[in-house]
């Protein structure tokens, strides 16, 4: 499956050759392309909308010149936080999916399918329907609590004598997810309609109400969790080889399992708590990253994160402009586009594996 031709690499050396980083050129190029694409999307996303702005206007406003109070308000208070939230949440979901797929060695694992999102959804819907007076400020906390609680439940259910079994983790997750969504729909069906609608908007993964508080929440967590994940990239490289091989190579498989699943859950929980369940980013981004370039785990993680950011940003942009003035939540767009794309990816890789 790996290409036969050796990929070209650049080697960075530091501290008198004691540290060296060997990076494939193609992967670096892809990182560059993705960064440019991300910036372009940010620019477009800041300009497009019901109140259109030209690129120059956007750039000037970002430099700090006040063209008009209206433009300032639109860019700084509405579109920029929304854009940042979309990019950050996308990156987090993508990374969460990457580590979940790595630890389960199953390319169909996605945090939005295995209970984490459903736990968050249940907590938020309970809040919206049962305690409407509490206001939306509580939502992220409830969602975070809900997804962490559910993840802990799934983890404890999937512990066997051999440690946390990753296959069990996924199947348990699906079972718990079904339970959670049945309770959620019970609440939705019998709550008042307007409250149900408000919960429904959140449930479909909407970034519309993003604020700077959300941005700072996401960035803080990202700043903590991404390095944690990068530190584990060596463990991930070993885990890629399979549990038996990893054990044979002397890796503490049980601890790696536990740490990677926890990181993955934390990433998904934070992202979900802010924007609602964003489906399929965690499924597609790692796949696409693998197909784009063969790289070491660390670089692959960077590509995955960037891809996730680009995808959610594009989805949010499409969702709010295509059917304007109607806004399609980004979560729906990602799922709608994502699944056919994913099926295509699978069929292609399946065919190339067979021949």
């Amino acid at each position, binding site marked *: 499956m790996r290409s036969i031709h050796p990929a070209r690499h650049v080697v960075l050396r530091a501290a008198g050759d004691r540290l060296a980083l060997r990076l494939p050129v193609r992967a670096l190029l892809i990182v560059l392309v993705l960064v440019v694409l991300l910036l372009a999307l940010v620019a477009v996303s800041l300009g497009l909308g019901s109140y259109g702005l030209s690129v120059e206007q956007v750039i000037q406003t970002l430099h700090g010149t006040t063209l008009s109070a209206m433009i300032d308000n639109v860019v700084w208070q509405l579109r920029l936080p929304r854009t940042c939230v979309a990019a950050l949440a996308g990156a987090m979901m993508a990374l969460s999916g990457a580590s979940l797929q790595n630890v389960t060695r*199953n*390319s*169909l*694992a*996605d945090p*939005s*399918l295995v209970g984490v999102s459903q736990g968050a959804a249940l907590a938020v819907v309970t809040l919206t329907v049962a305690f409407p007076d509490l206001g939306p400020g509580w939502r992220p906390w409830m969602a975070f609590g809900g997804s962490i609680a559910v993840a802990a439940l799934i983890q404890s*259910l999937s512990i*066997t004598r*051999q440690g946390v*079994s990753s*296959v*069990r983790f*996924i*199947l*348990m997750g*699906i*079972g*718990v*997810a*079904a*339970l959670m*969504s*049945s*309770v959620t*729909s*019970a609440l*939705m*069906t*019998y709550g008042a*309609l307007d409250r*149900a609608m408000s919960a*429904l908007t959140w449930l*479909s993964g909407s970034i519309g109400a993003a604020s700077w508080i959300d941005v700072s929440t996401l960035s803080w967590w990202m700043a903590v969790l991404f390095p944690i994940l990068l530190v584990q990239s060596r463990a991930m490289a070993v885990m890629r080889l399979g549990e038996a091989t990893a054990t044979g190579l002397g890796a503490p498989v049980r601890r790696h399992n536990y740490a990677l699943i926890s990181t993955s859950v934390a990433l998904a929980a934070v992202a979900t708590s802010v924007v609602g369940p964003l*489906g*399929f980013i965690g*499924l597609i981004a790692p796949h696409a990253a693998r197909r784009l370039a063969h790289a070491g785990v660390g670089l692959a993680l960077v590509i995955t994160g960037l891809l996730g950011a680009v995808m959610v940003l594009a989805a949010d942009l499409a969702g709010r402009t295509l*059917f304007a003035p*109607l806004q*399609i*939540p980004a*979560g*729906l767009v990602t*799922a*709608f586009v*994502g*699944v056919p794309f*994913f*099926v295509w990816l*699978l*069929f292609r*890789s*399946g*065919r190339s*594996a067979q021949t």
Partner: protein
Amino acid sequence: MTAPVSSTKRFAAWSGVPVLLGVLALFFLLHIAIGAKDLPLRQVVDAIFFPDPSVFEHRIIRDMRLPRAVMAIAVGSALAVAGALMQGVTRNPLAEPGLLGLMAGASFAVVIVSNTAGLAHLAVIPLVAALGALGAAVLVFGIARFAPGGATPLTLTLSGAAVSAFLGTCVSIGHLLNEEGFDDLRVWLTGTLAGRDIAVLYFAAPWLIGSLIVSLGLARQVTALAMGDEVAKGLGVETGRLKLVTLALVVMLTACSVALAGPMGFIGLVIPHAVRLFVGSDYRWIVPYSALLGAAYLLGVDIFARIVIRPQELSTGIITAMIGAPLFIYLVRQRSR
């Protein structure tokens, strides 16, 4: 195989049938008797066997409660048999029409057709649902086959979840674009027997009864197939054809039940597993027992759904999921690695 063992076993299996039939009849009568206005069982029996149009209660029973009870029986037995067949043919204890995306496919097709084509004729609804279920089944099995690792229970369940989520998304987008009817559909999409049109039953019944009869006829071959493809071939079963026929049966049974009551999860998981505890792994017993027990189970759940938060009622599908999901979790825990 010595005679005494098999004959006692056969006796035990046969003796369960009258018990189940009795339970079914009891639940049937109770289901009709319990409601917004509780009626005495005597009156229920009277209304069924000696209807008197001048008595108000008899009209309630015959026009409103009897159809609902009949639908519960139809849906319960169809889903239980569909689940049993899927588990047998795929040799996957976690197979179930809901988990593997067939229900999502059927309800997606029904929602889309009834939203876009306006008044779709009731006669085509089971067929539309069948097309949807078939599409979803092909998609789920396709994804699982091409996924690295092949169609294991894990990849099948995951691709089922993915396809269900995708179809759910499409339905949500449809709702956002066309908000009318949301109030109607959000109840239907949780699976309920309340306020269903009895006319659908007339159109679904031939398919449903036909599929159930064919399933009974195939049960013997399914038993062979459940022991493995090689064994089945050795016993003279045309495995490829059998798999296709079973797929068609499962699709039809699922489609009819979705057309009748919306998606109702986990019945196809709970009932066959419960039945296996009593009758073992012979599908000649599993299929008829599943049909009977599934019918009784859904009647019971529907009674519960109507009395638990009186005067409102809960969606039946929500309760089947609340009972079924823990069983699913239990089954996964049981599977030793």
